[in-house]
């Protein structure tokens, strides 16, 4: 049996189509408003792990105690198609009220807080203190051999500060993940 595939089939070759895998990887910050009920975070995280999406950072806390709503801020990466899927899939979760893509919905501010413990003496200790000043980090704990710095800023700023603290005796670091909000009223 032979098939006459030419007739009626495509003018241009399907093999010329763009490979979706060639698409650019983008980073997006999503704000997800959810009912603060048992298991809601597991639903969101399970969606990402189950479908193979990335989580760069995730922050969650109750933001409306009366309405029992929490805000989850997720920084994720993927092709534009994957980002669209992530938003659509999040929208299917029953306790999810709203999904906002802060990266595309206009200008937004992003902040992260970190605590860094730097142990050292002599010049290194002085240098750590000097850099902390430049980065507007606060000292929230101090001993004769160590500082704990509190720093707030964009993730990039915290990365930069962390890199500088490494040779100066950084022993421990805790980061909150990104909290983000659209600019303007």
């Amino acid at each position: 049996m032979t098939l006459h595939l030419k007739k009626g089939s495509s003018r241009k070759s399907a093999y010329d189509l763009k490979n979706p895998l060639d698409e650019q990887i983008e980073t997006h910050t999503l704000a997800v408003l959810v009912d603060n009920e048992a298991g809601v975070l597991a639903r969101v995280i399970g969606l990402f792990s189950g479908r193979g999406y990335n989580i760069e950072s995730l922050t969650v806390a109750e933001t409306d105690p009366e309405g029992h709503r929490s805000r989850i801020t997720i920084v994720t990466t993927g092709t534009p198609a994957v980002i669209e899927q992530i938003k659509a899939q999040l929208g299917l979760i029953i306790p999810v009220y709203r999904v906002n893509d802060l990266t595309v919905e206009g200008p937004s501010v992003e902040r992260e807080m970190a605590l860094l413990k730097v142990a050292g003496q002599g010049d290194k200790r002085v240098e750590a203190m000097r850099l902390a000043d430049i980065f507007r980090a606060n000292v929230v704990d101090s001993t004769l051999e160590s500082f704990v710095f509190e720093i707030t800023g964009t993730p990039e700023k915290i990365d930069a500060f962390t890199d500088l603290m490494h040779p100066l005796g950084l022993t421990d670091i805790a980061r909150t993940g990104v909290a983000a909000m659209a600019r303007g009223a």
Partner: protein
Amino acid sequence: MSREMTGAEIVVTALKEQGVDTVFGYPGGAVLPIYDAIFQQNDIKHILVRHEQGATHAAEGYARATGKPGVVLVTSGPGATNAVTGMTDALMDSIPMIVLSGQVPTFMIGNDAFQEADTVGITRPCSKHNWLVKDTDELAETIHQAFHIATSGRPGPVLIDIPKDVQFASAPYKTKAKAPTTHYKPQVKGDLAEITRAVEAFEQAERPIIYSGGGVINSGVAASQLLRELVAGSNAPITSTLMGLGAYPASGDNWLGMLGMHGTVEANLAMHGCDFMLCVGARFDDRITGRTDAFSPDSFKVHMDIDPSSINKIIHVDVPIIGDIGHILEDFLKVWKSRGRKTKSAAIKKWWSQIEEWQATKCLDFKNSDTIIKPQHALQRLEALTKNMDRYITTEVGQHQMWAAQYLNFDDPHRFMTSGGLGTMGYGLPASVGVQVAHPESLVINIAGDASFLMNMQEMGTAVQFNLPVKQFILNNERLGMVRQWQQLLHGERYSQSWSEALPDFVKLAEAFGGKGILVDDPADLDEAIKEMLAYDGPVILDCVVEKHENCFPMIPSGKAHNEMILCDEETADAIDAAGKTRV
């Protein structure tokens, strides 16, 4: 002030208020209070299955044959974990289902108590939503919300986990009207601007195709009527997914047969060659698209779907329309009619002559035999002998399932129940039980393979106990036929573990359960055997011994496009390349 009742009474009362007449279940320690409440009433019939997986598939069969949600009642621990397969199946195929599971008492949760499992944790990814109810006061409203969520939007399974102490404790009953609602209100009306864009493209189509799916059936009978009206009015050819069979009648003039991996040549080539595709309630599943980067490369695509996440998930479309298919089709027809029912009728006629050329390949023809029953022939005879009956068909999963889709004709929705997305062997027998419960007077046939049938054969006991005259039509090739076919095509004919040794004597098996068994292995006796099966008033297993090495064609080999189908054994050499072998 409503009367106080126990949690168990609340469950039964809420089910009644939701219009439930049948529950499929299996008792155990953690649901005894609910079983006690069921014992003390007569409005809800309880069908005792033989395994909780059977309960879920029976509920799926019931749901798909009625359009109502199926209800399942299981105990904690193994009762709930056994329901997982059926829930996943219902999630993939968008079947409304409410699963009520017992749980150990709240004060024992987390202690690794007897028959304790983290049921909401386990079922989170395989349910549309689930709840652990820790307070009897919240039980009634949770059940009402569960029905709302399971049946609206894209339907799916939900689970309510009810600890035993919550079943014993008392609270006032909240009616559906008094229960707080959720914010869950999926969009049902399609965007009119998008619908108008779709109509404009439809009017210009020279080579249109309508590709319909299970969403049409889920939307209700009216959606199927609207679809038929659209096809008749436009003369567009129509194909359907496995899940959508029956929405447009197989006897209709514009029917091309099923599309996809084992779809017809005309359906797949029309999909490949069309210039306009109207996807109505289908989701571009990988069984449908084949190689996605070569999928219908030249067409303007319109996608109607109730699930926003289905849009652009696999195939990029030009016009997405989110909403309920019935509502969208109604508006689509309204707009199209108001603009004068325009079509490029001359071009469509030319398109049809091309399609007729493809139809002339008669891709479902097969070499029949006088000495051995060909499975396709068995189904053609079954079709001939039952086509005018009030008939419901279920299937298991494998070659027989694809042959059933190819050789049986469905003229109405809700008549064909099969496990599409998940591909669950063992689905068909319990599903046939559920369908027969819903339609006691109708003919219900499960098309099965020998291997699939064994996976849930215990449900023959349920059929016998409840006088459900389900007909088990086993195409027995003593093989895991589809596995064998793939091993032949992909793995150098090394048939690893794909034949059924030590098969039971199916006639004796039927008799052991209290049903009737019939064996047929000669084509000359086939019609008589089918008639004998149909005539018997009770469960029957018809063991139809068929050709052992028959392959299911046409076939789009994995990793290939719609225009790269293979039609017969002679074309199978090197049909699948290395990249294709990695796919399922």
